[in-house]
């Protein structure tokens, strides 16, 4: 398929997916909400994706084939070139934001080099860091009996260190699935990773400082400078309810996968507030301000890290007063093998697929996979998490009836019975909570 055809397809689908289906593929979406292909339409779509479509009849109307749904590659994705980092996809260079392609998230524990990068401000200059990282100080003040200022060296020796595998995920992960587009970096599913973090429990520090009865919220501050260069302005300052701060899995971390946390990932000291929007896990942590009310730093107001309480019309302005703070991230699953776009050898009749699933504060109870656009589903095997807030491995072996183009879909359900929708719903201006069923495309050579 030529790039020109691909862009044309995107424009058509971007304008009106259901009409595009009808025009391009001769397909109409019936009252059953399920489209069908017939005659020339099927052949056209097959030609467009360069293969036969064994289950085309089950593909819902208006859903662009996954092979076409990728970002239109005018110049292809910009690949990160940075020492110590894998080939992540750059979403922006200032602030530096890069996501991990799903096939690079296949490891049980995400290696540091493959971990996504999300900055809100400027990475602190090496020159602004103490030459000895152990001299880095973190302050805890506000609604506490004894304000603390602890150097990293003391933190490491005076408190018990714990090591946990914890999910960290950008609050906007999945934003690119919203239609119409929501504001911000257009993440697919790659703003997430599960590394092994070592640190001390924030609860131990808060107990040492002694929370006053009025302590209800935290406010986090770091050393990253606002993009404007204004040193008096925090790049971002978010916080969490005290209960989350006191959770034994919330860490003031100083090691990532057994080594000092690299500067690009917030070292020497950062917060890890697992399962919640990543912006609560402040990098280059300098201060935790214990508040007697909900924190009101930059990133806590407007539509930032907030979803609409009353469902709003997709694409409309909404009312920032009618919003709720995004806390726990929603249930999500990704296929990490095979890769999206994998060409499977002629004669392949089975895929042993792998992936990860996670669900914010909850665990994943089941993952279902489909290779026929959701007409039939098969239960995957889901492993227990290594510890609470770690993602869970799923595997499934699916039979393929023949050669051609297939989409592998996966859908996780959490322990509350909440599953992934087919399309990103609950549209909100800044695009949080986009967690539709994951779709990858593979091609079995004829």
């Amino acid at each position, binding site marked *: 398929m030529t790039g020109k055809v691909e862009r044309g397809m*995107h424009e058509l689908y*971007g*304008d*009106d*997916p*259901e009409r595009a289906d009808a025009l391009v593929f001769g397909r109409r979406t019936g009252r059953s909400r399920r489209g069908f292909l017939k005659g020339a339409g099927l052949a056209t779509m097959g030609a467009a994706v360069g293969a036969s479509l064994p289950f085309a009849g089950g593909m819902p109307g*208006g859903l662009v084939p996954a092979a076409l749904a990728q970002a239109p590659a005018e110049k292809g994705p*910009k690949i990160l070139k*940075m*020492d110590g980092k894998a080939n992540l996809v*750059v*979403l*922006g*260079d*200032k*602030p530096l934001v890069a996501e991990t392609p799903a096939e690079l998230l296949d490891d049980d524990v995400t290696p540091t080099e493959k971990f996504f990068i999300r900055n809100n401000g*400027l990475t602190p*200059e*090496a*020159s*602004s860091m103490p030459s000895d990282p152990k001299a880095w100080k973190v302050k805890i003040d506000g609604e506490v009996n004894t304000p603390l200022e602890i150097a990293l060296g003391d933190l490491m020796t005076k408190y018990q260190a714990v090591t946990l595998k914890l999910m960290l995920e950008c609050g906007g992960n999945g934003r690119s699935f*919203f*239609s*119409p*587009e929501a*504001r*911000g*970096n*257009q993440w697919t599913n790659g703003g997430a990773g599960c590394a092994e973090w070592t640190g001390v429990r924030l609860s131990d520090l808060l107990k040492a400082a002694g929370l006053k009865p009025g302590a209800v919220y935290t406010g986090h501050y770091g050393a990253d*400078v*606002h*993009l*404007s*260069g*204004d*040193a*008096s*302005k925090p790049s971002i300052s978010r916080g969490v309810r005290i209960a989350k701060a006191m959770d034994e899995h919330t860490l003031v971390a100083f090691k990532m996968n057994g080594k000092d946390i690299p500067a690009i990932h917030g070292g020497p000291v950062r917060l890890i507030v697992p399962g919640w929007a990543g912006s609560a896990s402040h990098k280059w942590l300098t201060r935790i301000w214990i508040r007697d009310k909900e924190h009101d730093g*930059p990133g806590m*107001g*407007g539509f*930032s890290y907030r979803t609409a309480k009353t469902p709003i*019309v*997709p*694409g*409309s*302005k909404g009312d920032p007063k009618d919003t709720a703070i995004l806390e726990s991230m929603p249930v999500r699953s990704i296929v990490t093998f095979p890769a999206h776009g994998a060409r499977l050898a002629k004669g392949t009749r089975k895929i042993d697929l792998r992936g990860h699933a996670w669900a914010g504060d909850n665990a994943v109870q089941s993952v279902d996979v489909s290779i026929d656009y959701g007409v039939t589903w098969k239960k995957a095997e889901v492993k227990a998490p290594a510890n609470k807030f770690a993602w869970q491995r799923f595997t499934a072996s699916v039979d393929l009836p023949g050669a051609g183009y297939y989409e592998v879909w996966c859908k996780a359900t959490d322990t509350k019975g909440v599953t992934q929708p087919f399309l990103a719903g609950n549209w909100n*201006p800044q695009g949080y909570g986009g967690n539709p069923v994951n779709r990858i495309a593979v091609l079995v050579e004829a």
Partner: protein
Amino acid sequence: MNISMTGAVTLAIGSLALLMMLDRAGGFRPAREAPAATASSTAAPPAARGGPLAKGAIPKALPPDAKHQDTIDSLPAGKGQEETFYLCAACHGTALIKAQGMTRDMWDSTFQLMVERHAMANPDPDDRALILDYLATNFPPRRRGRDNPFLK
């Protein structure tokens, strides 16, 4: 990411000092206080950041600490291209702009967010309209989704 340490320190300290003063003053400092700014003679006034801007006063250059590789050609040509570039790219790269496709209304609320939360200068309404027209024309919604009966 190879930065000359000395150069980076000098530039960082110089521009920080300058920015802090500008912020305290809420805009440009009066002329009599200007000598303090000689700490970094290369630091052009970062007027695209903070405070109100008179009509046509959007600078025609990036502040020296913009720290990204983008140039005016990083944005598509069109009426308002320059103003958009120098106002937005004073702080962030153009990739963030280009990744998004929004209605004029949503670009407007994005603009407001930049002024209120991110210390972007607040241009004259005519300049603002020029930039919003540019953004809405060049970066309209690309994923319209279903025909929405409530957005007529």
